[in-house]
Structure formats: structure tokens, C-alpha cells
């Protein structure tokens, strides 16, 4: 880290650099000295550590990476809160952060990660334009909020620039578009608009995501769909906009509209499987999981567009030297296609579809990416059959889905105010 970007943000995010570097060097020297007899073995087995959610930190993935790369990759999966806290406050405790673009408003200024040099990304050209320009196909809409292309480009020192440039904040990886999930048997009709989230027909049987930043987006999409209000930018609301939205939510809550607010993937699955809710904001693999448990569930394709999110690999600012080379090897490996195929079988997409295609069977490719009916039974990454023959993935093909992202998960400027009003909403 240079003195320049140390700036005045010391303390939690940065700090104590020189002393720590000194300690690190000293410890390294001691370690090198003590194992001087076996330099090669030590070098070969020197592990790198990566942290993230259970979305990308899966033993099979890091295990395969270790095998392919010839050095151990140790994954540590965490829940969202624990992951975020560790990424921001302890960048000396990991080399790779498998993070999310919607947190970049915090991570870019904090400089806890180093800019990634695209010259060292072998297949950078194959990464789609979704994360580079925001348009997967030339005529797709870019969507509001923290779309990856708005959070991607950096200069050499890690400051945000209007792209494209040589340096990036994070290597684009897995991503998806969230929507509403519903049980068609219980709703009795096809859900085609976000507005249904507030339909009186489903009173007491609706759940919303209890993460203020994302929960309000689903609500804002619904409010706009009902024609009640027009937000200037759903990814960055003003105080009066937040007020309108929260007041509306409070009214709905007091009417008893919501059954529950969920926080984890597993909760959202259980709510639907157990029949507590018939309609809820949902993630695509959760719908797959519900169907796997034998409960009918549809992942709605909504005419207003979906809410997108995008994850990727970042490198800690603390990493230098040989470790840094290993980090580049690891993040390059993420683009190799195998990891993309692995996450595809869970319903996530990867930033290099052409490489993924090589590692999927044609039937799998047709189902997961092209949105065609499954030509045969298809397994999840662990071999359990989760797709019956003839099933169709809701929402059409990858290109169709991502042509119509209404808003990306975001961190708003008025975040503090939002959390305050969200607290009021929950207490109401």
C-alpha cells in the first residue's frame, strides 16, 4: 500500500501498515530460515486463503482449484454479515475476497483490495459486456443502481474512473437476476408483475427480504408497478422517496400483509416449502431447492424487469510477490469454464459463457443458459437430479433475462437514513 492511498482513512479499514509490514517481513524471514532445508516443498504447498459466501466457497470448487493449480486454496465460507465485516476489517486474514459489486461503494474508497491488472487476466476479452458496459447484448438496458460496469473501472492507485481502463476492482464472476418466487397452486394465477407483491389477495402470505438495501428495491419495483410513485433512481433514492416507500410499507405491515421477513437463503426456502407464504422475493437457486423438495414453485419472469446482482474475485491489498502470482492464477482459473459450469448447475451465470459451454453437456447448456426445455433429467453440482425431463427454466434465456435488469443491488448514498427508517418499519 502506498502512502498516497493510505489517505486519512485509517483505523478500522487501514492502518498500522509499516509496523505490520515489518512484522510480516520478520515473520517471513523466520519462517524461511527455519525451513531452509526444504524450500521447494514449502513453496509448492504455500496456500492462499479465500473468503466468501456459500455461493462460491464450496469445497468442491476450491478443492478442484487446488488440484488444477498445484497449490492449496483454502476457502472459508461465511454468512453475509460476517463476510462483509471480515473483508473490510481484516484484509490481512485472506488473500482473495469473493465479494459483490453492490458493496463497492465501501470497498473501493477503503482501499482494502488492490486494483486488478486486466493485462494479467488471460481471458479478459472473453468476459462479456454485461460487466464492462452494462449491456449484455447491444440493445439491453443497463438498469439502475450499482451495476458492475459502474463499480468496475479503477486507475492504478485504485481510484474509481469512468471506464474502460486497465485496472478493475474485482474480476467479474457469478451473477444472477432475482425476482419473485411463488407457489402457483396457492396463488391460483400466474405472477407477471412486481405489483403482485402487495396484492390484497395474498395478505398474510407474503415474505420480503430483511436486508434494508435490497428489501426496499423489491418494494420500490412493486410500488412503481402499481403506479403509486415514480422513483428517480431506485438504486439511489432520495430521503423523500425513502419516506414515501417506508410509509407505504408501514401501512402494509400494519394491515398484516407480511407473514415474515427472511434473512438467509435457507429461510426463504423453508417459508415456501412449509406453506407459510405463497409469494416472496427470492433467489433463483432457492426456487430450484423448493422444487427439489417436491413443492411447486415458479420463479416469476416480471415485465418490469428483474433485480440483478453480480459477484467476483478481488485481491487483498496486502498481497505481494509470489502470493500475488498465485492469486492471479486462482482468479484466472475462475474464468476457465469448469467453475462456471459448477455454479451453472445451481442456477447462477458466469461472466464467460463461452468457456462454461465447453464444460456443460449440451442438454445442460440448453437448459441453464438457453432457457430451452430439459432434454433429459439434469443434476445439481453434487449429482442429485433436480431438473425433470421437459422442464423449462422460467424467464427465458440468459440473454433475455439480463437484457431486462430493472435495478442492481446497491448501496445508496442515504444508506444511514434508509436503515433508520427500515428500523421504524420493522418496529411498526
Amino acid at each position, binding site marked *: 500500500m502506498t502512502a498516497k492511498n493510505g489517505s*486519512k482513512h485509517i483505523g478500522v479499514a487501514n492502518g498500522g501498515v509499516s509496523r505490520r509490514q515489518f512484522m510480516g517481513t520478520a515473520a517471513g524471514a523466520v519462517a524461511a530460515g527455519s525451513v531452509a532445508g526444504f524450500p521447494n516443498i514449502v513453496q509448492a504447498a504455500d496456500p492462499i486463503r479465500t473468503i466468501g459466501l456459500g455461493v462460491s466457497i464450496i469445497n468442491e470448487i476450491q478443492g478442484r482449484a487446488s488440484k488444477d493449480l498445484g497449490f492449496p486454496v483454502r476457502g472459508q465460507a461465511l454468512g453475509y454479515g460476517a463476510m462483509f465485516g471480515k473483508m473490510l476489517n481484516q484484509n490481512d486474514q485472506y488473500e482473495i475476497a469473493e465479494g459483490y459489486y453492490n458493496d463497492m461503494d465501501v470497498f473501493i474508497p477503503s*482501499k482494502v483490495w488492490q486494483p486488478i491488472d486486466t493485462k494479467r487476466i488471460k481471458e479478459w476479452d472473453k468476459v462479456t459486456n454485461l460487466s464492462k458496459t452494462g449491456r449484455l447484448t447491444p440493445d439491453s438496458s443497463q438498469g439502475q443502481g450499482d451495476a458492475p460496469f459502474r463499480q468496475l473501472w479503477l486507475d492504478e492507485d485504485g481510484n474509481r474512473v469512468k471506464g474502460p481502463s486497465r485496472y478493475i476492482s474485482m474480476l467479474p464472476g457469478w451473477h444472477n437476476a432475482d425476482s419473485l418466487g411463488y407457489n402457483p397452486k396457492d396463488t391460483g394465477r400466474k405472477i407477471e408483475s412486481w405489483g403482485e407483491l402487495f396484492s390484497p389477495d395474498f395478505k398474510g402470505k407474503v*415474505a420480503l427480504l430483511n436486508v434494508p438495501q435490497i428489501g426496499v428495491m423489491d418494494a420500490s419495483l412493486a410500488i412503481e408497478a402499481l403506479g403509486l410513485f415514480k422513483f428517480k433512481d431506485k438504486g439511489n433514492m432520495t430521503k423523500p422517496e425513502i419516506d414515501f416507500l417506508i410509509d407505504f410499507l408501514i401501512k402494509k405491515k400494519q394491515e398484516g400483509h407480511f407473514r415474515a421477513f427472511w434473512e438467509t437463503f435457507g429461510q426463504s426456502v423453508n417459508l415456501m416449502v412449509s406453506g407459510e407464504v405463497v409469494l416472496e422475493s427470492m433467489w433463483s437457486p432457492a426456487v430450484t431447492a423448493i422444487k427439489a423438495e417436491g413443492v411447486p414453485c415458479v420463479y416469476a419472469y416480471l415485465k418490469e424487469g428483474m433485480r440483478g446482482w453480480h459477484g467476483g474475485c478481488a485481491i487483498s491489498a496486502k498481497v505481494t510477490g509470489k502470493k500475488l502470482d498465485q492469486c492471479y492464477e486462482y482468479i484466472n482459473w475462475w474464468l476457465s469454464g469448469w467453475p462456471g459450469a459448477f455454479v451453472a448447475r445451481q442456477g447462477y451465470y458466469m461472466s464467460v459463457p463461452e468457456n462454461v459451454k465447453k464444460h456443460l453437456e449440451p442438454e445442460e447448456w440448453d437448459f441453464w443458459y438457453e432457457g430451452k426445455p430439459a432434454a433429459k433429467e439434469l443434476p445439481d453440482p453434487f449429482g442429485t437430479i433436480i431438473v425433470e425431463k421437459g422442464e423449462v427454466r422460467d424467464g427465458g434465456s440468459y440473454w433475455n433475462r439480463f437484457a431486462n435488469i430493472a435495478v442492481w443491488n446497491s448501496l445508496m448514498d442515504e444508506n444511514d437514513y434508509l436503515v433508520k427508517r427500515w428500523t421504524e418499519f420493522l*418496529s411498526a
Partner: protein
Amino acid sequence: MQDFAQAQHSGLIGGQPVGPSQVAEARKTRREVGFPVGWLVAPATLWLLVFLVLPLISIIVFSFWTSAKGGLVPDLTLQYYAGYFYNEGFFDQEHRNFLTLSVFIRTLGSTFYFTAVVMVLCLIVGYPIAYFLAMQVQSFKWQMALFLVCMVPFWTSYLIRAVAWLPMLGRRGLLNSLLINLDIVDKPVSFLLYSEFGYTMALVQIYVVLCVGPIFFSLSKIDPAILEAARDMGATPFQIFREIIGPLSLPGVAIGMIFIFVILMGEFATAVVVYGGKTSTTGTVILNYYAIANYPFAAVNALMLMLSMMIGVVVILRIVDIRKEL
């Protein structure tokens, strides 16, 4: 018979004052009674200094810093304290916040109120269990075994037990099936879960054991001979309870209440799982601000929470003047 009032007891906070003559005598014989205090407290004090006091100081320092996107900026600002207390539109008749307290104070208040309710319920539910273990179960071995049986649910990770709430209390849960099979209700009831009722029950269920333990300990030290004597003198069971058992178990009650009070004030997970996140507690507020890296404001909330806990603990220790009761 042992005379309880005369026996030497140290108070909860420090011992009873030692008479000057005794001190003089102790000095004269150059023999200090018991292990030296310094050695007894040193390891724990050192531990607390490193792992509690220093981090606590840094939390206090954070509360005066500024949270900027991307990190903390050292500062000396009271803006987060102001943000905690000040409510926009408090004096504005037109505003929705006219004469309402800030949401953080209200949340602290409702957390406090809820805690008090659950404490009372825990006492009502837990006291007879402690009484049963101490007074009705004769052998020490069975006392321990039956007490441990109450502890066992704690040894299954809380996060796992939390997942089991839904299949137990949900609309298609076990309890609803039972109610339907017994013809108590004809269609599933939904108030068991994601409701204030379910939330209260869950908290009692999870934390009641914490007050059973200390009460059990106080009760088990009551000499059966006194009770026998009181009975011989013709005291009714109610009198015995009011005059002997009740007062002698008060320290245990106070300690159990402190446990429950402190844990419930900081509670956040149960609200999410059993109440479906439909309420906020001070714990969830701290977590929400922590999650967006606004550490100063999370720290302010935490300090206010600690302050109110401290007040609560002092009040409990005042109500049950432990030194006197013993």
C-alpha cells in the same frame, strides 16, 4: 440449628466491613486469612483488561469518529450521539414525528419493556422448577441429573434449533397437526409463529433455564432443619415460603434475573427467526448499522444499550439488597 442471620457472609460486592479490632488482630498475628487477594484477581483482571477493557475503549473512541464511505475517519464529533437522540420534526406539528422520540430510543424502550415481561414469565415458570429440584428431589445426584436435562437443549447450536421452529409451530407444523387431530381447532392457526405470542413463548423457553440455575443454588443451601422447625412451630406452607424460603432465595432470583435481563436486552436472533423479523430490538439495530459499516453509530447504540443494562443491573441489585438478605 445453624443461625443464618449470624453466619458470616460476604456481600455480592465485596465483603462485609471487617471490624477494626479484627483487622488489628490479623495484623498482629501477621497471618492474612485466605489466599492473597492480589493473586486471586490478577489473572482475571489482566484477561479482562486485554479482551474487554481495551476493545471497549476502542468502541468508545469509534463513537466519536466519523464514518465515511470506505472507513472510519478519526474525529471528535458528537453527531452520532445527536443522531441517536434527535428526531427530525419533533417540534413540527405537521411532521409525522411531532413529539415522538427517535426510533432508537423507542426501540430501546420497547426492548426494555419486552425484556421485563419475559423476565417475569421466566420467574413464574422457572421458580417452581428450581424449588422442585432443591426441595423435592432429595439426592444430589438426581438434582444434578434433572438440572442437566434442562441444560441439554443448549448444547444443540442455537442456529440449528432456530431452524426447527418453523416445522414445529408453522401452519403445517407439528403443533397445528396436534391441535387439529385433537379437534381443538378445525383449521391451522397462524398465531403460533411470527407473532408476539410465539416470540414471547420462544424467549421464555430458551432462557428460563438461566434463572433456574441460580435459584436452585440458593434454595439448595437452605437448611431443611429451619423449615422443619418452622413447621413444628405451626407455620403454614405459605408463611414458610414468605418468611423463609422466599427471602433466602432472593439472591438466586436476583442473579437469575440479571442473566436473563442482560441476554434479552442484547437479543437479536430470536426476533429474526421466531418473530419473522417483524420487530426491531436494539440488538438488530446495532447489527444493521454494523452491516453497513457505520461503526460509530453502531457503537453509540451499543453504548446506550450498555448504559441501560448497567442501570438495570444496579436497580436489580438495589431491589434485592443482596448484602442484607444474606
